[in-house]
């Protein structure tokens, strides 16, 4: 008698036993981001025990927490980058990856984002940008387009949205890339680039929230929303030839910055040697 063949997903080794079913709504972009990330981890051969995920509060925090079978620190709202800074400085051998939303890293936690970029501490920030507060009920976010109606802007949003990648570039980010959940292959490639470099990395993933965002733009089908992402996406090369007016409402995608600058924990290691020599 032959035993039944066990069929396992090649990435199931990264999934925490008993953590299913997951908590995301049908059609949420988080599943695509989760799989893209685990593929990147697998392809670069990063051992699980070397990885720490730090989660923000919001739907995107639930990508690793508790779904990934990996050390996970589910932080307070807005603070995962600060928590991650302590983890990385505490044990520089660890690869520390933050999963947080646009509200988490650019509204309540905006200060931590720009300072982590400035310090060039070697944490990787995966920012899931759905342009709205999904978990709390679809309120306006700093990334919501102007004029858009949300549960808290019933007459339309008066404010201009943040361009998060530009923000991080201005703060000195040494690796900055933006893709949408439509661009899976390029997203995985950028995640691999982020995981194999020393310095700070910021990866903005424009992602669909069909429940709260989609219905506001009249696209409740997640696949349709991703097609919309495809249509609205402009590569950096093409964007260079377009005016600001022409770029309104578009998603400029690509790898914007990729430079190596001395990483903070390496500088600390040098500092320790110098301080020890100096004190003797």
């Amino acid at each position, binding site marked *: 008698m032959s035993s039944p063949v066990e069929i396992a997903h090649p990435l199931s080794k990264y999934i925490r036993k008993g953590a299913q079913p997951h908590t995301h709504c049908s059609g949420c972009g988080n599943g695509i981001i989760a799989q893209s990330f685990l593929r990147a981890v697998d392809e670069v051969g990063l051992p699980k025990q070397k990885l720490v995920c730090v989660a923000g509060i919001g739907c995107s925090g639930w990508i690793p927490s*508790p779904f990934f079978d990996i050390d996970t620190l*589910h932080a307070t709202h807005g603070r995962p980058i600060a928590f991650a800074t302590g983890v990385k400085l505490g044990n520089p051998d660890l690869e520390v990856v933050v999963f947080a939303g646009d509200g988490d890293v650019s509204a309540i936690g905006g200060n931590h984002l720009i300072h982590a970029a400035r310090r060039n501490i070697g944490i990787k920030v995966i920012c899931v940008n759905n342009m709205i507060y999904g978990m709390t009920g679809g309120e306006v976010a700093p990334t919501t387009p102007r004029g858009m109606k949300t549960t808290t802007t019933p007459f339309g949003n008066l404010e201009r949205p943040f361009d998060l990648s530009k923000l991080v570039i201005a703060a000195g980010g040494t690796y900055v890339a933006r893709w949408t959940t439509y661009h899976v292959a390029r997203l995985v490639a950028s995640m691999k680039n982020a995981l194999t470099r020393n310095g700070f990395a910021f990866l903005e993933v424009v992602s669909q929230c069909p429940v709260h965002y989609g219905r506001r733009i009249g696209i409740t089908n997640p696949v349709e929303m991703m097609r919309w992402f495809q249509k609205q996406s402009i590569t950096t090369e093409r964007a260079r030839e377009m005016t600001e007016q022409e770029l309104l409402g578009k998603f400029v995608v690509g790898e914007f910055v990729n430079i190596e600058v001395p990483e903070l924990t390496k500088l600390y290691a040098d500092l320790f040697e110098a301080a*020890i020599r100096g004190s003797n």
Partner: protein
Amino acid sequence: MQGNEACALGAVAAGCRFFAFYPITPAGEIAEKMSQLLPKIRGVYIQMEDEIAAIGSVIGASWTGLKAMTATSGPGFSLMQENIGYAVMTETPCVIVDVQRAGPSTGIVSAPMQGDVVQARHGSHGEYEIIALAPSSAQEMFDLTIRAFNLAEQYRTPVIVLADETVAHMREEVIIPQEDSLTILSRKVSSNAEDAARGFLSPSVAPMPIFGKGFAAHVTGSSHDEYGMRQASAPEAIDKIVRTINQKIVPHTDQISSIEKIMLDDADVALVAYGSCARTAEYVVKHARKQGIEVGLLRPIGLWPFPAEGVREALKSVKRVIVLENNLGQLFPEIERAVPSNVETTFLAPEILATLHRPDYVMKYVRGEAH
């Protein structure tokens, strides 16, 4: 040596290897000293972008197994409260030094006040227990910082050193003992996967499944079970958390929150004071004794958990109690509750808040000339 410097030396002696800070008076000298000492022992000093980030990074560092600390004063202590609650909830050992200054708000940056006593106890939202120690000398800035680390490690919880501007800035003799004569405790760390899986919520303190060991620890400020798994909608889970945090600490109040008794055995009048107020109180006791007045001092060294039993026992045979605080009575309700009901209990703030009590002013109350 200055109290703040002694605090930094105590931290390093206790094994602190991560210190995060955001500049604030009157805690600045702790950071200056830490920034000099830590790199020489491969410890991290980092200046963060605000106090929220400082305590956040301390929590992160603690999960890599390091002993970690931050220092601040009132405004920064207010900002830290949410993450202090997170550290309680996730059983993250760390030390927070709050050098209290005059408040509310920006207040007076270099004047002593004891306005954060209740905030230390209840500043974060939700129902929880906290440990807070109140040094009253430069020597205790050293000793109690070590003790704070030991308690944090032993009970896997944040511990607050509730200093004040006077003890932080005063300069006096500090005896630094030989390293091998110090008692230094370190947290229990999970050594195998089975231990690591049940990494939370044991009344006898679960070993900590620190990061990087392959345990796939799951640490969350959401309601969770003893495996660290989120139980976001079960009232039974949060009930267990609140009761376990209480059970971890409260039954050990006598060991955690010690009290000092000075000339109390035969006293008719007991002064109760902590922190810098205890210095005036001690002076008054010695002065009054010379005049033949039988007065003694009870000094709570640990304020939280409040050592009610110890206070009750120590004050059971006095006739009058005078409580000295540099506020309008933050610890007073706890003391009043602990004192037997037939004992007259008076609260005494300094004539002008944010200054020390004048001994002659206190003496009027001791002699019964003022009430």
